[in-house]
C-alpha cells in the first residue's frame, strides 16, 4: 500500500491544512472510517450503559462543573498553594510560559540526570509541546509505554484521539507494525498476543530506564499531590521504578482538595472509557523515601491557557478534564476521526482548544468544524458549553476577516454581508426573493428541482438536489388571501 504525503496527517496547527481540505483523504479511506466508527460505537454503548445506571449523574455534572469553574476563578491562589505544598513534600516546581520553555526545562532536567533514554506515560501536554521530536533531536530517546502510544511510535503514525490514540488502527495493522519493528515474524493478529508482545517489549525498559515523564490528571493544591488515571499499569511502572520523574501539567489541572477526587473520579472513567472506574489511579505527593522516584519535578505549563481565562465564555475551555466524551459523541468526529483536526486535540474540545492555544493565529477553520448539534455539551461531565464557545470563536474569526483585504474575494463573506443588508428590510428581502425566483428558473430542471448550482451553491448540489423556488412565497399567498377575504 502506498502512502502519499497528503495521506500523512500533520498535527501541528501552524502547518496543518484547513479542516475542509484535511478531511478529504480521510473521507475516502474506508478502512480508517470503519476503524473509527467501530471504536466509537463500542465506547458509546459502554458509556451509555454506565451513565444510565448512575442515578446522580446530573448532580455529579453540576458539582464537577462548579468545582472546575471555582478552580479557574481562583487559579493563582491554588497554583501557589500547590507549589508550596509540593515543594514541602520534596518536589520541585517549575513554571513554563510556553511550549519552548517547557521543552527546555525538560531537557535541562534530563541532562542534569544524565538521561539518554526516558520512559513516558501517555501525556497530552507532552504531545501539545511536541516534546518527543525535540528530545530526539537533542539525542534523548523517548519511549512511549501506553499500548496505543507504542503502536503509534513504532508505526510512525499520528494519534487520532486523546484517550484511545490508535483507534484508527485495526488489529491487522498493529500486527504488521509489531511484526516489523519488534522482529516477530510469527505474530498473529489476536489482540491478546499483540498485547503480550508489547508487555515483553517494555518490561526491560521499565526495569532499566531510570527517568520518566508523565502528564497529570490532577494537581491537588491542599496536598501538593499529583494524580494519574490509567488502565494498563504502564503508568504505575513509570511512577514507581525510575529514580527521576518529570510531570508536565497544564496550569488548569489543579483541584483544591484531596476530597474533590470523589467527584472527578466518578465522572472521568464513565465518560472516557465507559468503566465505573479505571483500573489504576495513582496519587503521590512529592518524594517518599524508599518508595518511587527520589527526584520529582513538576512543570506547570501555561502555553496560552492564562489568556483563555479573560472572558467567561472562553474560560470554560479550561474546565476540560480530557475525557474525550465530546469526540466520542460528535457526529463530525465519527466521520472524520482525529487527524483532520490538524492538532493533538481533535473533536469538539480540540475545535475550541486548539485555536485558542494558537492565540487565534492558526486553526481558524476548526471552530467551523461542527454542525452545532449540541451533543458534546450534553455529554460533557463538567458542562462545557462547547457550541457557545465555538460561536464565540467563529465571531473572532469573522472579526479577523473583516480586517483582511482579501475578504472582498471571499464569496461566503460577501454573501453573508449582503444577506444582512437584505434581511434588515422587508422591502429589500422581498425584492431579492423575486429576483432569486427569476434567477432560479435558469437552473431549475423540468422536474422542478435544481440539480446543479454555480459557485458556493455547487457545494450544496455536489451531493444534494434543491427543490426549485415556488411561484409564490408564503407572504405573497397571505397577502393575496387577505385581499380575497375583503
Amino acid at each position: 500500500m502506498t502512502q502519499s504525503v497528503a495521506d500523512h496527517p500533520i498535527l501541528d496547527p501552524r502547518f496543518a491544512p484547513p479542516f475542509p481540505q484535511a478531511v478529504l483523504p480521510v473521507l475516502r479511506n474506508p478502512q480508517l472510517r470503519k476503524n473509527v466508527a467501530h471504536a466509537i460505537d463500542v465506547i458509546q454503548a459502554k458509556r451509555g450503559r454506565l451513565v444510565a445506571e448512575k442515578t446522580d449523574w446530573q448532580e455529579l455534572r453540576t458539582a464537577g462543573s462548579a468545582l472546575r469553574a471555582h478552580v479557574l476563578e481562583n487559579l493563582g491562589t491554588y497554583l501557589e498553594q500547590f507549589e508550596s505544598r509540593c515543594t514541602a513534600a520534596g518536589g520541585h516546581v517549575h513554571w513554563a510560559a510556553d511550549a519552548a520553555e517547557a521543552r527546555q526545562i525538560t531537557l535541562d532536567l534530563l541532562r542534569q540526570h544524565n538521561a539518554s533514554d526516558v520512559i513516558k506515560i501517555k501525556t497530552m501536554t507532552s504531545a501539545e509541546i511536541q516534546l518527543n521530536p525535540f528530545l530526539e533531536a537533542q539525542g534523548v530517546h523517548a519511549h512511549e509505554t501506553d499500548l496505543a502510544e507504542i503502536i503509534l511510535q513504532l508505526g510512525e503514525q499520528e494519534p487520532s484521539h486523546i484517550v484511545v490514540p490508535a483507534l484508527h488502527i485495526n488489529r491487522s495493522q498493529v500486527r504488521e507494525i509489531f511484526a516489523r519493528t519488534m522482529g516477530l515474524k510469527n505474530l498473529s493478529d489476536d489482540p491478546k498476543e499483540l498485547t503480550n508482545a508489547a508487555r515483553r517489549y517494555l518490561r526491560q525498559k521499565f526495569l532499566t530506564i531510570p527517568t520518566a515523564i508523565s502528564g497529570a490528571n490532577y494537581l491537588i493544591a491542599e496536598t501538593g499531590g499529583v494524580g494519574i488515571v490509567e488502565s494498563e499499569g504502564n503508568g504505575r511502572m513509570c511512577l514507581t521504578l525510575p529514580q527521576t520523574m518529570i510531570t508536565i501539567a497544564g496550569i488548569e489541572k489543579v483541584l483544591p482538595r484531596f476530597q474533590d477526587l470523589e467527584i472527578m473520579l466518578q465522572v472521568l472513567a464513565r465518560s472516557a472509557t465507559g468503566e465505573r472506574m479505571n483500573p489504576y489511579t495513582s496519587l503521590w505527593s512529592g518524594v517518599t523515601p524508599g518508595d518511587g522516584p527520589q527526584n520529582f519535578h513538576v512543570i506547570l505549563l501555561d502555553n496560552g491557557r492564562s489568556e483563555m481565562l479573560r472572558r467567561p465564555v472562553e474560560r470554560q475551555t479550561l474546565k476540560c478534564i480530557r475525557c474525550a466524551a465530546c469526540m466520542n459523541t460528535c457526529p463530525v468526529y465519527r466521520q472524520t476521526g482525529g487527524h483532520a483536526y490538524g492538532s493533538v486535540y481533535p473533536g469538539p474540545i480540540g475545535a475550541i482548544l486548539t485555536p485558542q492555544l494558537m492565540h487565534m493565529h492558526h486553526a481558524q477553520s476548526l471552530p467551523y468544524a461542527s454542525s452545532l448539534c449540541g451533543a458534546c455539551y450534553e455529554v460533557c461531565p463538567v458542562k462545557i458549553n462547547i457550541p457557545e464557545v465555538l460561536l464565540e470563536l467563529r465571531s473572532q474569526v469573522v472579526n479577523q476577516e473583516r480586517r483582511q483585504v482579501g475578504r472582498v474575494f471571499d464569496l461566503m463573506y460577501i454573501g453573508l454581508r449582503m444577506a444582512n443588508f437584505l434581511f434588515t428590510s422587508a422591502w429589500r428581502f422581498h425584492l431579492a426573493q423575486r429576483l432569486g425566483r427569476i434567477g432560479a428558473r435558469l437552473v431549475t430542471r423540468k422536474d422542478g428541482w435544481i440539480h446543479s448550482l454555480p459557485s458556493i451553491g455547487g457545494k450544496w448540489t455536489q451531493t444534494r438536489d434543491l427543490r426549485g423556488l415556488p411561484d409564490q412565497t408564503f407572504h405573497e399567498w397571505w397577502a393575496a388571501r387577505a385581499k380575497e377575504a375583503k
Partner: protein
Amino acid sequence: MRASLFITCYNDTLYPETGRAVVSLLERLGVELDFHPKQTCCGQMHANTGFRGEAFCQAKRFVQLYRDTETVVIPSSSCVAMMRDQYPGLFEELGNESLRREFAALLPRVFELSEFLLDRLGVDDVGAYFPHRVVYHASCHGVRALHLGERPYKLLAKVRGLDLAQMANTDRCCGFGGTFSVKNAEVSSAMLAAKLQDVIATRAEYCTALDNSCLMHLGGAMHRQYAGMKTIHLAQILAATEDAPAEAIA
C-alpha cells in the same frame, strides 16, 4: 386565542406550503392568526457563522416587530433555539437595557409549533388524517436546545391512519448545520449519508420533522438518489384531513 405567525425567511421563500399548513391547522383549532408583513429572518445564519453584529441587527428587528404581540408561533425549532440560546448573549453584548427588557418580556410568549399546540393550546389530537408510514427526524435543536421530548410523538400518535416508524440513532445530527453544509460540504455529506441509511432503513414513505432545514438536506439527497421517500414538515401532516389531504395543501 390570537397568535402571530413568524414563518422564518427560508420557509417563506422555499417552503410556503408549510406556512399554509400552519394557517390551515391553527385556524381549524380556532386560533386567530396574524402575519406581520415586515418580518424577515431571526439572524440564526449570521450568528452561527460568526457574524454577531449582523445577527444582532436582525435579532433587534425581531424584538421590535413583535414586542406588542400576544403570542408568536414559529414552525422551525432551530429559529426558536436561536432566540432562546443566542439572543440573550447578543443583547447582553450589543444591546441596551430597554431592548433586554423588551426581549425578556417577549421570550415567554414565543413558541415553537409543537410547544404551541401542546403547551399553549393543550391539544394533542388536532383531528388530522394521514394514511402513510412516517418516520420522525428529531432535529438537534428540537432535541437538545428546546427539549421537545415527547411532544412531536404525542402529536403523531393521534394522527389517524398514520403508521409511525422508529429510526435508529434518532438524535444523531443529519449534517445540515446551516452554512456548515457548504463550508464543510464533504463532511456534511458524509454525515448525511450515515443519517440517510438510518432513515431509509425504516421503509417509511415520509420523513417528517419540525425543521424544514434538516428536511431540505435529507430531501435533497433523497431526490438525488431516487430513494423513494419524501420529506414533509410535521405541520403539513397535522393539517391534513380526509377532506384536504396533504398533497392538496402542498
